[in-house]
C-alpha cells in the first residue's frame, strides 16, 4: 500500500556543501506537480561543516504546518547519521550513501535501508572536488524523483530557470539527475511513498516571509532602511535592497530612490529610522529579539515624541543569544510594551507571505497616520522558510496615507498651531516637517515633557494631559488595526482555540483532528495588537479558550489578561517552545491531556 502525497522527508546534510539549492529543487518539483508542501530549514548557527537539515512535508490535504515523524530520511551526513537513523519513523525508509558500509549497530529492523553509492558515483564521474560535492546532492534528487515518481521534465524546467544566464551548467546538472534515476532503475529500488500530480496549487506561490516583507516595504513606499545583521532578519534588509536595485532606480540617471544603511548596531539603526521618520521619509529597520532589546530606548522616544517608524521583528529563540537559528514567538510582550515608562505599540502579526506583504505595506500608513512606531512581528519559521501562499496583489488605485502633515499653505491659513494639540479628538496631533515654511511650523522635538505647543515643561498637569491624549490615540489605533480572523460565521461551541502567526498552520490542522473525534470547536486568529472588539467578544462568548503559542510564558495569554481584563482561568495555555515549529499532534495531545474533547 503506497502513501501518496502524504509524507515527511528529511534531508540530513553538512552545511556549506550546496545542499540547500538541491533540496529546494526537490521541494519545488513537488510544488510544481500541484501538491502543497511545507519546507523547513533546520540549520545551525554556523557557516560550514555542521549538520543541517531540510524537512519537507508533502500534504495533499493542504496541511502546511510541520509534522513530526520522518517517513523518508536522506542521510548524507556521517556526523549525524546515528541520530538521523534513530529519528526515522517505524516503517520508514532511510536513503544513505552506501559507498562505505554502515556500522552494524546503526541498523534498525523496523525501517528500510536503501543504499546508493553517491560518493562512488561522483568520484567516477567527476574529478573536481567541488563538483563531486555539489553533484552528489543532485544525484540523490534524481534518485528520489525516480523512487517517488516526480516527473523528470519538471526538474529539468526548474534547472533551466535556476541557471538562466548560466545555461552551460544545465546539462551537467541534468546529467547528475539522470545518474540518480539510472541507479534506481538499474537496481530495481522502490519505496512505498509516492508523489502523484494534482491540481491543488492554482495560482499560489512559494515564498519566504522575509522577502514578502521586503516587497511590502517597496510597495508601501519605504525610502530608508537602516539595519544591523542578525539572524533571522538579515534577509529582510537584503531583499529590500535587491528589490530596490531593480525597482527603484531613476531610469535616466541611474540614481537611487532609496537609501539602505548598514548601521553600526541596532541602536543606530533605530536612530536612523527615527531621524528619517521625523523628517518625513517612510523608513524601517528589521531585526530580531536581541536587536529589539537594544532599540528599546529609541522606541520610547518614537512613542513619546510621536515619530513614525516601522520595525520588522523576525523572532528567534530567546532569551539572550538563545538558539539564534530556531523559531519562537517569544518577543510578543517585548514589542507590545517596549521601552521604559508607560509605553505600548501597535503590532501587526502576519501568518503567511501574503500577509507579510500586506501588513508591511500597511505598517507605513499606520506609522504615519498614528505618528508612532509600528511593529511587524513574524518569526524565523515564516521569515526564512518557503511557504505556499496566495499570490501578493496590489491595487493600483491605492494611495499612501501620509497622515496629518501640514503644508506651508496650511500653516499660512492656521491662526495657531500646537504640535501636540488634539484638534480632531482622535488623539493624533498635526505635525510639520523641517524645511516647510520660512517663519511658521518650526518646533523642538524632544523626549522630555512638553506642553501642547512643544514647549518644554515639568508641569505635572501638562505631562498628564499629554499622557492621557496618548491613550486617546491608542483608542484610535484600535479602529485602524486589521481585525482577527474568525474561523466560523457563528459560534458553535463553548470551547475556543486562539492563536496567531505561524501557529495557525498547526492549530487549524489540530482543530480538524479534534473535530474529527467528535468535538466541536470555534477558533480565532489574532492579527494585531491592540485587540479589536471581536477578540473581546470571542473571549466573552466562550467558557474556555485554549491559547496556543510558541513561547514558555504564554505571552499572548498575558496580553489578553492584561489588556482585556479577562478571567485568567478561562485561558488555558497550550505551549511549544523547543525552537521547532509547533505541530498539530503536539497541540492535540496537550489539549486532550487537559480535557478530552468528545461529543
Amino acid at each position, binding site marked *: 500500500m503506497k502513501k501518496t502525497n502524504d509524507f515527511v522527508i528529511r534531508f540530513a546534510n553538512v552545511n556549506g556543501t550546496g545542499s540547500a539549492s538541491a533540496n529546494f529543487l526537490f521541494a519545488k518539483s513537488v510544488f510544481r506537480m500541484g501538491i502543497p508542501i511545507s519546507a523547513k530549514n533546520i540549520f545551525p548557527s554556523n557557516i560550514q561543516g555542521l549538520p543541517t537539515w531540510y524537512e519537507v512535508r508533502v500534504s495533499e490535504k493542504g496541511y502546511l504546518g510541520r509534522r513530526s515523524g520522518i517517513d523518508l530520511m536522506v542521510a548524507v551526513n556521517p556526523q549525524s547519521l546515528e541520530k538521523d537513523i534513530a529519528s526515522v519513523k517505524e516503517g520508514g525508509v532511510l536513503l544513505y550513501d552506501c559507498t562505505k558500509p554502515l556500522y552494524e549497530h546503526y541498523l534498525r529492523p523496523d525501517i528500510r535501508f536503501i543504499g546508493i553509492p553517491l560518493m562512488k558515483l561522483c568520484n567516477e564521474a567527476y574529478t573536481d572536488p567541488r563538483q563531486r560535492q555539489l553533484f552528489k546532492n543532485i544525484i540523490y534528487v534524481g534518485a528520489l524523483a525516480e523512487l517517488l515518481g516526480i516527473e523528470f521534465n519538471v526538474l529539468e524546467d526548474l534547472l533551466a530557470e535556476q541557471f538562466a544566464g548560466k545555461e552551460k551548467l544545465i546539462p551537467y546538472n541534468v546529467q547528475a539527475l539522470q545518474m540518480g534515476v539510472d541507479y534506481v532503475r538499474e537496481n530495481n529500488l522502490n519505496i512505498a511513498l509516492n508523489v502523484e500530480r494534482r491540481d491543488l496549487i492554482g495560482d*499560489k506561490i512559494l515564498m519566504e516571509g522575509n522577502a514578502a516583507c521586503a*516587497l511590502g516595504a517597496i510597495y508601501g*513606499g519605504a525610502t530608508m532602511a537602516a539595519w544591523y545583521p542578525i539572524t533571522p532578519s538579515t534577509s529582510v534588509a537584503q531583499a529590500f535592497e535587491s528589490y530596490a536595485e531593480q525597482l527603484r532606480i531613476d531610469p535616466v540617471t541611474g540614481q537611487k530612490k532609496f537609501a539602505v544603511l548598514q548601521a553600526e548596531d541596532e541602536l543606530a539603526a533605530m536612530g536612523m*529610522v527615527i*531621524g528619517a521618520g521625523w*523628517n518625513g521619509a517612510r523608513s524601517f529597520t528589521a531585526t530580531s529579539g536581541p536587536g529589539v532589546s537594544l532599540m528599546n530606548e529609541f522606541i520610547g522616544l518614537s512613542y513619546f515624541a510621536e515619530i513614525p517608524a516601522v520595525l520588522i521583528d523576525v523572532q528567534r529563540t530567546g532569551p539572550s543569544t538563545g538558539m539564534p537559528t530556531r523559531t519562537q514567538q517569544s518577543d510578543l510582550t517585548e514589542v507590545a510594551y517596549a521601552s521604559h515608562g508607560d509605553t505600548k505599540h501597535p503590532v501587526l502579526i502576519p501568518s503567511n507571505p501574503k500577509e507579510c506583504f500586506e501588513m508591511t505595506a500597511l505598517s507605513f500608513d499606520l506609522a504615519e497616520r498614528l505618528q508612532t512606531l509600528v511593529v511587524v512581528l513574524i518569526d524565523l519559521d515564516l521569515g526564512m522558510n518557503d511557504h505556499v501562499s496566495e499570490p501578493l496583489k496590489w491595487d493600483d488605485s491605492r494611495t*499612501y496615507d501620509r497622515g496629518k502633515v501640514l503644508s506651508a499653505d496650511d500653516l499660512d491659513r492656521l491662526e495657531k498651531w500646537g504640535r501636540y494639540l488634539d484638534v480632531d479628538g482622535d488623539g493624533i496631533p498635526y505635525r510639520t516637517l523641517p*524645511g516647510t515654511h520660512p517663519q511658521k511650523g518650526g518646533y523642538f522635538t524632544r523626549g522630555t515633557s512638553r506642553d501642547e505647543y512643544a514647549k518644554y515643561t515639568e508641569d505635572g498637569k501638562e505631562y498628564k494631559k499629554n499622557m492621557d491624549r496618548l491613550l486617546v490615540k491608542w483608542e484610535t489605533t484600535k479602529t485602524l488595526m486589521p481585525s482577527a480572523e474568525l474561523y466560523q460565521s457563528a459560534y458553535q461551541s463553548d470551547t475556543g482555540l486562539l492563536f496567531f502567526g505561524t501557529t495557525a498552520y498547526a492549530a487549524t490542522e489540530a482543530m480538524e483532528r479534534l473535530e474529527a473525534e467528535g468535538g466541536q470547536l470555534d477558533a480565532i486568529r489574532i492579527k494585531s495588537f491592540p485587540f479589536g472588539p471581536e477578540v473581546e467578544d470571542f473571549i466573552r462568548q466562550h467558557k474556555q479558550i485554549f491559547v496556543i503559542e510558541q513561547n514558555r510564558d504564554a505571552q499572548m495569554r498575558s496580553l489578553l489578561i492584561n489588556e482585556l481584563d479577562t478571567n485568567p482561568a478561562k485561558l488555558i495555555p497550550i505551549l511549544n517552545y523547543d525552537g521547532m515549529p509547533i505541530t498539530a499532534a503536539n497541540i492535540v495531545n496537550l489539549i486532550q491531556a487537559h480535557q478530552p474533547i468528545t461529543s
Partner: protein
Amino acid sequence: MSFQRPLFRHPNLPKNELGFAKADYEGTLSTLCAGCGHDSISAAIVQACYELNVEPHRVAKLSGIGCSSKTPTYFLGNSHGFNSVHGRMPSVATGASMANRTLKYIGVSGDGDSASIGMGQFVHVIRRNLNMVYIVMNNGCYGLTKGQDSATADVGSKSKAGSINPFQPIDLASMAIELGATFVAQSFSGDKRQLVPLIKAAMDHRGFAFINVISPCVTFNNNVGSTKSYDYVRDHIEATATIDFVPHAEEITAQYDPGTETEITLHDGSLLHLKKLANDWDPMDRISAASAMQKARSKGQILTGLLYINEDAKNLHETIESVPSPLNQLDETDLCPGSAVLDDLMMSLR
C-alpha cells in the same frame, strides 16, 4: 522651563541679505549657568548663520542629551530642532539627512555625549562622511549631573571637589582626523573671532565638518587645577592660523602674502583665507595636521583653528548615489512599482 525672548524687534535693526535681523536667528533664553561657555558658542552659531544669510527653515538642529545638547533651543528658533537620546544624535541626524539631503544639519553634542556613551555613533558618522556640522561643546565634565569627570578630562586635571583625574583623555579632534573626517577644527568658546568664521566654513563644507570647542563649565570645572578652565585654556591655546571666511558672492579686496598665507576654495565658491601661524602644517594634508596636533599636545598646548580640510571626498549621499531630490518628497509614482510588476514577480515564484 524655557523662557521666550520678547518678540519685539527694533525697526532699525540691521538686516542681512534675506531681510532677517540677527535676532531672527536667536532661540529662547538660555537656562544654562551664567558665564557658561556653551552660550558663547550658541551666540557664535547665531552670528554665523546671520552672516551667511542662511534661511532659518532650511536648517535642522539636532542634539543628544546633556548641557550642550540643551543649546539648540537657544539658537535658530525658527528652525526645526530635535533633542534626541544620549549619545545617539549622529544616527538621528543620519536618518534625517537621508530623508532630505537639501537641508543643512547642525548637530550639537558634548564630551559625555560624544566621547563616552555616543562614541560608537560618533566614529561611524565620521566614517560615512555625513554632510553635517558637528559641534562638540567640550568642558571635560558632566555638568547636568553635577560635575563628574568625562572622557575628555586630561590626566591630572583637578575637579572642583579636589580629585585628580587618573585616566587618559580622548582627543576627539585627533580622532576625527584619524577616522577620515573631511573638515576638522578646534576652537575655544571665548574666541568668537575664530569660532564664527570656523562655523561659517563648516556650514559651507560639503561633508562631515567637526568642530571641537573647549567650553569651560563655570560651575563644576572652572577651578584652579582644571585643564578646561577659562584661565588654563586662555594660557595654553595656540592657533594654527588666523581665519577669514569670504562668502562666494563677495568681492575679494584684501592682498595676501603667498608665503605664509593660504586660500582654500569651498564647494560653493566661498573662500577660506588662512594666515598660518603653525610651522610644518598644511591644512590639506592629514598627516601634517595630525602631527601638528601631537606636537602641540606634547608641549601642553591646545591647537586651535582649522586643522584639516578635504573638499574632494564624497559625502554619504554621493557615496550611495541617491537621487538629488529629497526622498521624503517622492510619491507613489516614484515609489510604487504597481500591480503589473508584482504580477510578473509572482510568476517567478510559481
